[in-house]
């Protein structure tokens, strides 16, 4: 895989409610009958699972759209880049067992083979587009089940290694940008409400990650006793719109109560991003988040949120290293210097506009 310069279509500007929702994702967990789950499978069995999935999916249109990457043969830097692009999980990239990932050319569909489950089928789109994600993931699933036997139980439905995924095996996640809720200390209420509704609110990179730049992933926890359409519908129609409404209200309140502070916050972020010589990752994410809020609030027209989304990826360590092979990045300081330089270049129009 080449170092990717754009943000991938799922990080584009398109999609409904893009002022708050960055991207949507649907993931289906499936296992092959007749094999132990990945945690219990031998190296030979894991190899068999990879080749079975690859061979059988190559025979049909739904499978041919994937380009396969053998993770064992893939250099660490590129594996890290795929994690940063949300194409594979951190654990999947770090394992040294036989495993592979199939990725569609536009990166909207990726299928991890031998993650915690034999198949993790995931589809991602920008903005609030859960339906498109669900359709894309389901199309692959429906195609795959014609040629693969999925592990199934009468009582528990689709079987998965972890009890938290049995049933329909679906995980719907929405990546949200919630700066105003964080700023007005309302995020705790969202967190509590999410917990009551059996939802998880996690950081930028999902499970086990820290919130960076006020980006959060909201996802369902329950997969049993509900049809997958119900899980999708619940988030799409009830929960996400409510969080969006709440965030917009907080933004409006902040803008009207403290217009000077809102503008100052944006300008400070812009000034740092366009002048700093060293830029650590967490600071870059935080400041880019503030730019995104400034753009959504109409504080600048010099740049748009597509650029911010692209930068959110490009400032990540593996993206940075792969895009600048000539830069020495042996230390965090060198990495911070490269990041600062990238940001200054990319945000030149913003620098000109703020004078």
């Amino acid at each position, binding site marked *: 895989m080449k170092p990717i310069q754009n943000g991938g279509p799922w990080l584009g500007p398109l999609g409904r409610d893009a002022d708050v929702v960055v991207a949507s994702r649907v993931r289906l967990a499936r296992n092959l009958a007749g094999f132990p789950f990945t945690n219990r499978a031998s190296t030979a069995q894991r190899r068999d699972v990879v080749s079975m999935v690859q061979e059988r999916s190559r025979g049909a249109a739904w499978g041919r759209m994937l380009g396969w990457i053998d993770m064992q043969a893939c250099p660490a830097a590129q594996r890290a880049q795929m994690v940063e692009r949300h194409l594979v999980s951190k654990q999947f990239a770090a394992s040294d067992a036989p495993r592979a990932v199939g990725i569609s050319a536009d990166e909207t569909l990726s299928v991890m083979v031998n993650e915690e489950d034999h198949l993790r089928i995931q589809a991602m789109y920008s903005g609030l587009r859960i339906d498109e994600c669900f359709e894309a993931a389901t199309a692959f699933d429906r195609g795959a089940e014609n040629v693969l036997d999925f592990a199934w139980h009468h009582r528990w439905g*689709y079987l998965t290694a*972890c*009890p938290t995924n049995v049933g329909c095996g679906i995980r719907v996640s929405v990546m949200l940008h919630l700066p105003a809720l964080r700023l007005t200390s309302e995020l705790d209420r969202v967190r509590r409400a999410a917990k009551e509704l059996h939802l998880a609110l996690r950081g930028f990179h999902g499970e086990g990650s820290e919130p960076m730049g006020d980006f959060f992933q909201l996802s369902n926890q329950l997969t049993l006793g509900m049809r997958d359409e119900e899980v999708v519908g619940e988030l799409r129609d009830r929960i996400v719109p409510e969080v969006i409404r709440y965030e917009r209200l907080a933004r409006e309140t902040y803008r009207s109560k403290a217009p000077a502070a809102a503008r100052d916050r944006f300008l400070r972020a812009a000034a740092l991003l366009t002048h700093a010589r060293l830029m650590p990752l967490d600071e870059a994410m935080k400041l880019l988040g503030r730019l995104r809020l400034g753009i959504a609030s109409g504080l600048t027209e010099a740049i748009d949120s597509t650029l911010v989304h692209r930068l959110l990826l490009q400032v990540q360590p593996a993206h940075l290293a792969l895009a600048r092979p000539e830069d020495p990045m042996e230390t965090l300081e060198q990495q911070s210097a490269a990041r600062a330089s990238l940001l200054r270049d990319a945000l030149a129009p913003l620098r000109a506009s703020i004078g």
Partner: protein
Amino acid sequence: MKCDQCDKPAVVHETVISGGMQSTVHLCAEHAAAHVQHVPATAPIADLLVAQLTGQGTVVSCGGCGMTLTEFRKHGLAGCPSCFDALSPAIDQAIQRAQGGASAHCGRAPLRRSDAEARSAYRARLLQDLDRAVAAERYEIAAEVRNALRQLDAAPEASA
């Protein structure tokens, strides 16, 4: 790093594994104190029930992959599809705990599966569970199993 519950600096960083899901909690001194009081006790009842139903000291393990109940409890992951029958009822309880009490799947089923075969094996297993539960006078378990049998009989046959 800030506390998850407020803006004070976090002093306690706890990795919690719940139902196999790992998450890290960052708390300030005050919230950490409150948190400790709210940590739910893990249900020892599952152990007791398993001991009752299987005979004390017997190691419950899966014939398919060799996974023992202790290993399942430790890692929170099943080893193969057969574990879901072999490690029952402990695994049933783990699932129901992780799934907000839901007791059975509803919705889509895969197109390809030897439905009749799997069904009759599952039915036989449930009947066995029922006998053992009644013999051990664990009537609440017996009621659960009867529910599962009812659900099985009510579920439509899938087209193979």
